[in-house]
């Protein structure tokens, strides 16, 4: 820790990069972090690390506790001890004696389909908005923005009735349609931000070579936009994976539940099967967290790109 107190060896380097950036006409060089200013005393260093350690601890403890609890026998769920009698019984119970796997399959189906459809149509929209200037573009941007703030409460009853009349209640397709309304507007914004970072010259080259606009989009830009597409896909996936309100309202019957609804059945007013809940939650969270680890860097640039460009 004490090595942090001597950042002086970095000071000489701080003057050089500014020359290279001053050559750029733009006032906004991309992703350049400010270099450390001055010296930091040992006391400041300790304070900095202490604060960060405490914050990290608060951030990490609940998921960690979930993991620990899932390995405890049902009767010990609330003991404060770390694992005393390590057991995989909860996992065994969840996987073999409950409908958990059904819920996983339901969720995967709903979310997977939402992701594929959502990414495709938000990519075409994002591309159109990024590259073309067409009548109706600004209203569309507004529409996408406004749709994001629609509360669940406005739409849920009419959607419920609409799905009921189309006999889509309790059907995965009904949820897919619903989730598209949540995922697409935001995804389209993110895709626009990403397409904006791809040089227009590439489109122009494609056109010169005789591709039509859709050909340019599909054969040149989509392959280049893979990172952006990955982020958008991830966002759609997470949105559907973690959605609670629609899933609770539209899906009934134990086999039809998605994960968010299914896990609620473990712990409600009448039962509290914390062992199963924690084991199931861990199974749900681990893949999401791993994928998240891969895409989180891009996620942010995607989120803020639209904002900082304006």
């Amino acid at each position, binding site marked *: *820790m004490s090595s942090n107190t001597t*950042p002086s060896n970095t000071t000489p380097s701080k003057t050089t*990069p500014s020359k290279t*950036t001053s050559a750029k006409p733009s006032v906004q060089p*991309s*992703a*350049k*972090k400010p*270099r*450390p*200013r001055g010296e*930091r005393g040992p006391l400041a260093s300790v304070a900095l*690390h202490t604060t*960060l350690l405490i*914050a990290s601890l608060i*951030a990490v403890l*609940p*998921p960690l506790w*979930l993991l620990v609890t899932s390995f405890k026998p049902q009767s010990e769920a*609330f003991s*404060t001890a770390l694992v005393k009698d390590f057991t995989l019984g909860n996992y065994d119970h969840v996987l073999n004696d409950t409908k958990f796997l059904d819920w996983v399959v339901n969720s995967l189906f709903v979310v997977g389909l939402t992701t594929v459809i959502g990414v495709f149509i938000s990519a075409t*929209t994002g591309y*159109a908005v990024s*590259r*073309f*200037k067409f009548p*109706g573009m*600004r209203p*569309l941007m507004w*529409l996408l923005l406004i749709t994001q*703030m629609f*509360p*669940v*409460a*406005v739409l*849920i*009853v*009419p*959607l*419920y009735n609409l799905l009921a009349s189309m006999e889509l209640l309790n059907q995965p397709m009904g949820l897919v349609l619903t989730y598209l*309304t949540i995922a697409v*507007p935001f995804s389209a914004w993110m895709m626009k931000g990403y397409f904006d970072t791809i040089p227009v010259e590439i489109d122009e080259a494609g*056109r010169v070579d005789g591709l039509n*606009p*859709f050909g340019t989009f599909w054969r040149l830009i989509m392959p280049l936009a893979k990172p952006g597409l990955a982020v958008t896909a991830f966002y759609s996936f997470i949105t559907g994976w*973690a959605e609670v309100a629609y899933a609770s309202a539209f899906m009934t019957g134990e086999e039809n539940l998605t994960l968010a609804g299914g*896990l609620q059945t473990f712990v409600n007013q009448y039962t509290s099967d914390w062992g199963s*809940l*924690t084991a199931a*939650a861990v199974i*749900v969270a681990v893949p*999401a*967290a791993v994928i*998240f*680890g891969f895409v*989180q860097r891009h996620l*942010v640039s995607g*989120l*803020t790109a639209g904002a900082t*460009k304006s």
Partner: protein
Amino acid sequence: MAVESGPRAVEAADVTGVRGRGPRPGKNPGRLRRSLSTHWYAWAMVAPVVIVIGVIVGYPLARGVFLSTTNANEANVERTIGVNHIPATYESVGLDNYKAILDDGVFWDRLTWTVIWTVSCVALSFAIGLVLANMLNRKLKGRSFYRMALILPWAVPAFVSVFTWRLLFNEKNGVLNKVLEGGGIDAIPWLNDPTWAKISVIAVNVWLGVPFMLVAMLGGLQSIPGELYEAAEMDGASPWQRFRHVTLPGLRPVATTVVLISSIWTFNMFPVIFLLTRGGPGDATEILVTYAYRLSFVVSPRDFAGSAAWGVLILLLLSLFAVVYRRALRKQGEVW
């Protein structure tokens, strides 16, 4: 070509309107034809989204507004029981629902709490995110470790986190109370006392919201040119002055956007409250959205009309907020 495509064209459209800089048809018919075909493609590409939004947002929205002017509930809507089809018997009641809601104290109570909830969640997570981002933006040992640890809550699906917090908050056996007990402090009824329940839901939502703020702020900090800090230092600015006059203005574009987005998200934050307290105890932690949900899916008979009216009011409030917010930004010379 450059006129019709690319980000520059988008900016131009902002200023001059959609048609303002279009090709001059009289001079160059070839360009006109090309622009028409361009528009055709653009429209074809956005059509799926427009259709999706139109069908599953536009139609339900229109119907929601319509329902809110009727007395529809579970007992009188169109339904099928077995083989019998029962037609709808609800009728229009004009604006009675709205009048009833606005005259009733429940709405104002819920609105007050929702505003408190939104403001405190956004303010706290913004402040914490800003502080942590500034700390992480220095040269620091173990920076990537801290970074990963701090954004972990974001990686876990929200409903899983909320269940975990319920486990921690458990009054008799939860870890938090066990720890307090160890320190000789009486157990706190985290989710069973109105005041503590409010504090608890805010705490959980802040815990969930900080990673997003942190990461957005980090991105914002890294887009501030280093020369600005050098210049400020040359002029003898203290660290606080540099933070106040370089960092904060530099963060504004990102900050205004994330504050707007997260305000709207928090205002509509359904899962945290629904799964943590179900709005309880009583309706102490019920925000507008969860209350409207309760009206149509929890209480019996389900009050579809009332719920729709609540929904429309929520939407109006949010639109008002967005408009006021945007005005305020514009007054300060912000483009968005």
